[in-house]
């Protein structure tokens, strides 16, 4: 099942299936008890220990405390399971080491796009039966779930958190200092450029920055291209994929970055910004605008000292030519070498930590409460796309309404359109390879005034196509 462009809207759209199920959910069968007893194929009471992906290595103590609380209540509920959380940050440059070295925790997180590759390489455990035994096991948005299913139709990974659309993040205080209205964020790329220039001219702070380090640089370039109506890969429908890294939209976005960097001087001149680095630069007030997943606010709070009063603003990524917002997300998976008992426990943990808060009011409130009452408080209510359905999402947000502590009013630019904007899924085949082929071009545009974009893109496209062909073999 391909997660292709034509199905883009589906992610945001409601699935009637999900809707119907969501109604029945709030009944007794989703209580934690039910989900606990449901999945217990191999001796429920035998003691089992699982390691699980925890927080970013540099997470706040408050976040750690919140996780520890959740672990404790999980262990109260399942006395035979011991949960050991480990710091975890998915990084393109280290994930493979962990995979090969067998150092991944039993439950770990991967980008949505890597699911297929890892499943085909036989590197994820089959958790089909355990997931299906969850009360909501059949209510996942099928297009999302497809990312975690093998060609045999079995489930190897489940959408777990942070299903996001790429959005524009901005610093409201810098907007104000530059004489811009922070309640009227830019809606076109031309406006972003003009705003960036004004911010840089008035405040000397870089108006805009883009990720350029490793695959994240390619990812954000793809997001830019998608927003301009282009794609980086097309499908022939026969299982054959063609890299289109030299798509005019890719080029347009690069030329736009080039103009910011070399004409306006409003682009932060750094080619070494990855996902974490750009968050740090933004949190440190070194840049006014950048694009990243809509859920980045969580990380800004968890690791970069951003608070509700910091002046954070979120708006939709500008689009033209029927372009849309690139979506993505995180899958939770289980290591291949886990025992059956560990797999069962792992899925219980996935339920507890990632999913039950979307399905069960008590769980939702318990989770929100510990996050909100942590010191400093962790973000509650950051807008993300639904794992199950829009109704389910609205419902779960309503449950935790009292605890929402994110500046929702300053996120209206995004939340107003999050369910109506055009959404674009990530490419299907060899995505990381395509991103890896693209990021050097982003770096070249930032670092060389006379970078030959056409030539570089053609070379990148050759590399990307070679990777697709190699993977198809």
């Amino acid at each position, binding site marked *: 099942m391909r997660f292709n462009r034509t199905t883009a809207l589906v992610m945001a759209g409601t699935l009637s299936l999900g809707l119907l199920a969501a109604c029945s959910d709030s009944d007794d069968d989703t209580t934690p008890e039910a989900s606990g007893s449901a999945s217990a194929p191999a001796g429920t009471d035998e003691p089992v220990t699982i390691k699980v992906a925890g927080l970013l290595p540099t997470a706040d103590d408050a976040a750690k405390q919140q996780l520890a609380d959740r672990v404790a209540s999980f262990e109260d509920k399942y006395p035979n399971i011991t949960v050991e959380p480990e*710091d975890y940050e998915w990084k393109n440059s280290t994930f493979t080491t962990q995979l090969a070295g067998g150092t991944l925790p039993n439950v770990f997180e991967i980008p949505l796009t890597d699911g297929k590759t890892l499943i085909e390489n036989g590197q994820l455990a089959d958790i089909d039966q355990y997931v299906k035994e969850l009360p909501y096991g059949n209510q996942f948005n099928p297009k999302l779930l497809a990312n975690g299913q093998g060609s045999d139709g079995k489930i190897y990974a489940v959408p777990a958190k942070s299903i996001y659309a790429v959005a524009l993040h901005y610093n409201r205080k810098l907007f104000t200092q530059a004489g811009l209205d922070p309640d009227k964020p830019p809606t076109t790329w031309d406006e972003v450029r003009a705003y960036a220039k004004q911010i840089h001219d008035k405040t000397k702070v870089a108006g805009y920055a883009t990720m350029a380090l490793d695959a994240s640089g390619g990812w954000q370039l793809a997001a830019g291209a998608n927003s301009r109506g282009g794609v980086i890969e097309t499908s022939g429908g026969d299982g054959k994929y063609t890299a289109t890294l030299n798509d005019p939209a890719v080029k347009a976005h690069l030329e736009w970055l080039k103009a910011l960097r070399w004409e306006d001087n409003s682009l932060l001149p750094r080619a070494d910004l990855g996902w974490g680095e750009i968050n*740090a630069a933004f949190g440190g007030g070194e840049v006014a605008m950048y694009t990243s997943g809509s859920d980045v606010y969580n990380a800004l709070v968890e690791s970069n*000292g951003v608070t509700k009063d910091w002046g954070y603003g979120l708006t939709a990524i500008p689009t033209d030519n029927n372009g849309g917002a690139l979506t993505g997300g995180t899958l939770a998976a289980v290591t291949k070498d886990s025992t059956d008992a560990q797999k069962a426990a792992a899925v219980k943990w996935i339920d507890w930590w990632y999913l039950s808060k979307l399905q069960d009011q008590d769980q939702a409130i318990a989770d929100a409460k510990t996050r909100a009452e942590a010191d400093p408080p962790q973000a509650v209510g950051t807008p993300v796309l639904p794992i199950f359905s829009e109704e389910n999402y609205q419902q779960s947000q309503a449950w935790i309404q009292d605890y929402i502590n994110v500046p929702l009013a300053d996120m209206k630019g995004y939340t107003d359109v999050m369910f109506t904007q055009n959404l674009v899924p990530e490419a299907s085949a060899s995505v990381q390879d395509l991103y890896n082929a693209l990021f050097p071009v982003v770096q070249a545009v930032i670092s060389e005034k006379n970078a030959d974009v056409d030539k570089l893109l053609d070379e990148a496209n050759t590399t990307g196509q070679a990777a697709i062909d190699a993977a198809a073999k």
Partner: protein
Amino acid sequence: MTTIDRDTPPPALPGAMPGSAAAAAPSASLAAIVRRRRRSTVDNPDRGALSSADWRRPSVKHTWRSMHFLLLVLLLVWCLGPLLLLGKFAFTPTQDILTAPMAVFPNGPTMHNVDQAWNRYHIGQFFMNTVWFALGAWFTQILVATTGGFVLSVLRPRWAKVLNWAVLATLFVPAVVLLIPLYKIIVHPPVGDSLVNNFFAVWLPAGASAFNVVLVARFFDSLPREIFEAARVDGAGPFRLFWHIVLPMSKPIIGVVSVFAVIASWKDFLWPFLVLKDDSVKPLSVYLQSMANVDKGTLMAALAISTLIPITMFLVFQRMFLRGAGLGGAVKG
């Protein structure tokens, strides 16, 4: 030694360390130091290109005096300057670091950064991990080098030649080759489970340093055989000989190897980065790398704290450090 010893990946494999090929010819080096000692004992004072007569000439004196002064200024700015800046950053609020890095506490100093680094990011814990790493690596290296040197130099069984050759040969294998096979062995050891996240993953490979073995064996070679003979006549076996005679006489060389061993562990990055991933074992160097994206003030405080101990050690044991480095150089020369 510019840029040399720092990146050799597998743990303290000075054996594979380029510099170590030198150990194959330590006699030159040791001879150099011999000469030095000899000269300082001769009445001819320690002198360089400039004679006392030269120093009495005003033009020479003033030229060299001013060159020396210039050198001192350059050393202060170039070598000490960055560290002083780091020290200042550790106590400067993040916003000041980012907007006016060269200003001296424009808004006053703060303890916030240090507090964050210590209490929120728990630098102390990773510091202790580094200490354990260094201690274990030190022990393995000393054990292998002294026992190995004892076999090669003192006991010298028939197969010592082969062993000597096999150890020397590893000097010609650069560290880069070992990285992946060594990783494979750590992940799938011949016996037992993966050693990843286990200190043994860094302790054991550290011992495979041909450089240490050769250095120690050459030193043992120089010990007077008459003492061994006397010990033998007194009925001392090899174990007593090793423990009560050879080791106590070898304190200087053990000191040198120890300095090398501790410094190497403290500096090592790539190998622990690959095999020590868990917080409970991660050394400072690996943890600091993952801190690259935290608040700048906190990062600077963490960097400063991590630098404090090696610098203190250096200032306290500076003679040993410099002699060690000089010996390394001499060995290399």
